[in-house]
């Protein structure tokens, strides 16, 4: 038997206002607190009223941050009933809060083993995997939740965002379309669907969903910012700026909205606007690393590596293990030829999250500068293995082979790099160097002509002063 009163007290409605910033610290806090919410999940009927009371008490203690007492209470329950799923789930949240993630995983897995249909434990495990930077496992758990509760809005939303962030666009669209069918009133899904279609360059479908979101919520900032991007995609900068302006009105003093607006402005290439709103966001909420990262990315786009460096350093002061911050800081230091320090940050980034090919790429560039050619090749090869379409990494790999006089491999990699990104003048320059060394003047001339054309093109496209290959401050799934 469920205990409705207890459920009502302990299970609050899921928050629908989804935060988009990627702050690990806040994200961590958020997940842990979410784990706590779910910790007080339905208590199964087999429990005695005494156990129910003790579990309720433990949940209250956790909520009040009286962790030691809660732990004591839960351990005493588990001594008597080692397979008590709710207790295992609660203790799992305690361990997660204590940062003992492996123990937390063990407890939550045990809870699920005892009760495979225990949704809160699955949800908690999904969050735990997020904390452990294991997106594939998170996806599996969220799918399990949706399998058990097809209408679970939060699980659907988070799964869709995660799939999007992993580049699994079609699956994200399927997930959202299904969730829409289950819960047509869940407006938060619509901008997400718009985002997914935008990523597929389907401006019509994106617009359709953003407009639906606006129809349901006329002040939906995500939808307005999405419409700005749709306009930009269509080359209609004026309309895009109009949407930005509307979003700005809505943003008011909301740091989250200002941040979203800043990221959108950055994406639209309106760097002064991005700088202005992000500085406002930072002022309103100076403890949010993601804001500093986005601000730093804006300075990078404005070709001011020094101010960018300061912003990234602020982000890392707030959250030293922020992989994105480490990578950005590494990048600006690399740009300033401060190779020693840059190297340290890329190595840290890889340690924190070894799934980002760009970290290997930039570390490769640095060791290449230090004449460690073999290691550079290893790192570039890793990057292209992780991301076979990573044009810059192919070019860098080709350049390394060129340096080692392995002209056959050099040519293969450089030509592939140039094919993947025909607008990359570095690829063409390296090819020109290769052909010059092979005494093939005709091909040298051809490559130099391409470089000249690209130069003319770049001169006509102002504002693209930086070519960092990482997209700025990508919102993490929540």
């Amino acid at each position: 038997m469920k205990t409705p009163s207890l459920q009502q007290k302990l299970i609050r409605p899921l928050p629908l206002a989804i935060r988009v910033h990627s702050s690990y610290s806040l994200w961590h806090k958020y997940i842990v607190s979410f784990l706590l919410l779910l910790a007080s999940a339905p208590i199964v009927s087999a429990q005695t009223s005494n156990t129910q009371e003790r579990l309720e008490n433990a949940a209250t203690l956790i909520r009040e941050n009286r962790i030691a007492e809660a732990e004591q209470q839960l351990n005493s329950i588990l001594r008597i009933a080692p397979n008590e799923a709710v207790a295992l789930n609660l203790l799992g949240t305690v361990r997660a809060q204590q940062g003992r993630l492996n123990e937390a995983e063990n407890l939550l897995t045990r809870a699920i083993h005892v009760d495979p249909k225990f949704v809160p434990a699955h949800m908690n495990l999904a969050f735990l995997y997020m904390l452990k930077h294991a997106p594939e496992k998170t996806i599996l758990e969220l799918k399990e939740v949706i399998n058990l509760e097809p209408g679970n809005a939060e699980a659907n939303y988070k799964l869709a965002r995660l799939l999007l962030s992993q580049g699994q666009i079609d699956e994200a669209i399927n997930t959202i379309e299904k969730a829409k069918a289950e819960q047509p009133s869940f407006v938060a899904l619509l901008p997400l669907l718009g985002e997914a279609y935008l990523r597929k360059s389907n401006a019509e479908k994106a617009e359709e969903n953003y407009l639906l979101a606006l129809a349901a919520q006329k002040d939906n900032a995500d939808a307005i910012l999405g419409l700005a991007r749709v306009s930009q995609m269509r080359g209609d900068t004026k309309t895009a700026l109009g949407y930005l302006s509307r979003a700005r009105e809505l943003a008011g003093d909301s740091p989250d909205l200002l941040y979203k607006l800043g990221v959108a402005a950055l994406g639209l290439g309106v760097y002064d606007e991005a700088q202005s709103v992000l500085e406002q966001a930072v002022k309103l909420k100076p403890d949010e690393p993601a804001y500093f990262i986005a601000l730093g990315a804006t300075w990078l786009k404005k070709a001011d590596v020094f101010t960018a460096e300061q912003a990234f350093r602020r982000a890392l002061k707030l959250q030293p293990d922020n992989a994105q911050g480490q990578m950005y800081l590494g990048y600006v230091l690399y740009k300033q030829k401060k190779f020693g320090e840059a190297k340290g940050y890329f190595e840290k980034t890889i340690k924190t999250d070894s799934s980002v090919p760009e970290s290997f790429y930039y570390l490769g560039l640095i060791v290449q500068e230090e004449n460690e050619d073999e290691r550079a090749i290893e790192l570039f090869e890793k990057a292209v293995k992780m991301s076979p379409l990573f044009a810059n990494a192919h070019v860098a790999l080709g350049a390394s082979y060129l340096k080692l006089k392995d002209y056959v491999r050099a040519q293969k990699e450089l030509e592939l790099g140039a094919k993947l990104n025909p607008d990359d003048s570095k690829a063409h320059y390296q090819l020109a160097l290769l052909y010059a060394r092979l005494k093939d003047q005709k091909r040298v001339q051809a490559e130099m002509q391409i470089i000249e054309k690209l130069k003319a093109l770049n001169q006509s496209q102002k504002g693209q002063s930086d070519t960092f290959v990482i997209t700025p401050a990508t919102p993490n799934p929540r």
Partner: protein
Amino acid sequence: MSFISKTVYAAFQLGLILSLMVLNLPSISSAQEAPKKANVTFEEVPAKKSGIIWVHNNAHSTNRYLPETVGAGGAFFDYDNDGWMDIYLVNSGPSDFYTPTTPLKNALYHNNHDGTFSDVTDKAGVAGGTFGMGVAAADYDGDRWADLYITSYGRNILYHNNGNGTFTDVTDKAGVAAPGWSTCAVWFDYDNDGKLDLFVSSFVVYEKSLNILCTDETLSRRYYCVPRLFKPRSSLLFHNDGNGKFTDVSKESGIADSPGKSFGAVATDVNNDGLMDLFVANDTLPNFLFINKGDGKFEEVGLAAGVAFSDAGKPRSGMGVDAADYDGDGWQDLFVANIDREFFSLYHNQKDLIFTDEPDEIGTATQMLSGWGLRFFDYDNDSDPDLFLVNGHPDDFIEMRTTRVRYKEPLLMFENTGQTFRNVSAQSGIVFSKEFSGRGMAVGDFDNDGDLDVLISNNGEPPLLLRNEGGNRNNWLGLQLVTTKSNPAAVGAVITWQAGGVKRGRLKTAGGSYLSSHDPREILGIGSATKIDNVEIRWPSGKVDKLANPPINSYIKVIEGEGVSRGGGRPAN
């Protein structure tokens, strides 16, 4: 990233390789003594003390004519053969866009041997009268008196030294007027015929009517245009015919095949074949590396050598250049200074006509600077070449457009640590905390105390004379090379010396820096060693002179084929 500059190159097939001339200069032996730290500083010699009251007039105007911002240069040279370095300074002058309100003059300052100088310009007859850019001093006719070649926006001037304190303008007779816009000039012997030929860097096609309106919306006033907007011109090579006349061989030598926007130029031998090559910096175009093929022809290989472009394949704003074997591996390395955000490049010679850009600490220090005059020289006499950089942004409005770049910029001093350079500017004197609109820079021992001093030409400002204080705490030997068969400047001579277990080699290059000309003597630093075991001079003619147990801490005169000149020593001042 710099994989471009670190790439390799298929072995370059030289038609003529003079095996006798292959110079694998010795590097530091493992048994070397640690060189004594000299704690060198450069101290400003004020005009009041030196007597150099001349000020550069840059003809600054609201129309922002480009020649206004790129000048000028200066020289250390001994015009009266008294053994003391005199100073020559180049000024602007009348042109199609500028009429001075009062006559402008270049200046020749006679060294009074006591730290002061006297203006002898009018007496010597070297006032110029063109819109001057740079100067190259050398004895082009082998009469043992140093002559002067002045480059200009307009007509260049060749002043022949009459040997009596006066000069004669022989430009037309010599055929080296080279109208247009010339910047740097280099005296060197490209065909090893014992006579000094002349390379003249040409900048853009320019005249008053071509002055484009360069402005921006926020300032609503003109600034100096980027040279990208002007057409390139070919540089010039003049062959010295030996009768006071020169023949323009730009076309037949291949130099004219590469139109550029050239500033700095240095003659050096990058492939150790005994023939002097040319490295030329271009502004907004790829730099040139002209390889001397030995048959009167040059081949431009900058791209394949990896010295033409930035790592991203973009041409940069090359200005000052120099060459030296900074790591003692026997191969000439190259340096080029660029404009802010482009980074300066230290090109390490990989020995197969391929260079890798390895600026290390110089890269971070120069990121936001624009470099002009620069020179590799051994400022502390520890035997290896250090590096002095003179900087300044060409646009006097730059600070209105960015907060990161300044119009006047600091000087920089880098000490050679063996394989790379360390920024020692902060410890090298108060002058390094100041900012200048620096352009030309010449190196010379004006006080004959055995360490190299520095002369800097500032755009629109007084020049800066810096006395080296402390370089001579380490021991040294000064050489004045006097040729009998080789070219009078001994350009291309290779000097090797051994002292205190350290073996060093130095190629006598020509040109280098920006618009400027250096003391022709060579100071060989020996650190704390108290004796020089031997000195060998391999002259461009192929002759070799060996000096055993030469004196230290003094200048000696070495005559080609004869060794040390009797009574040629000059004690340290």
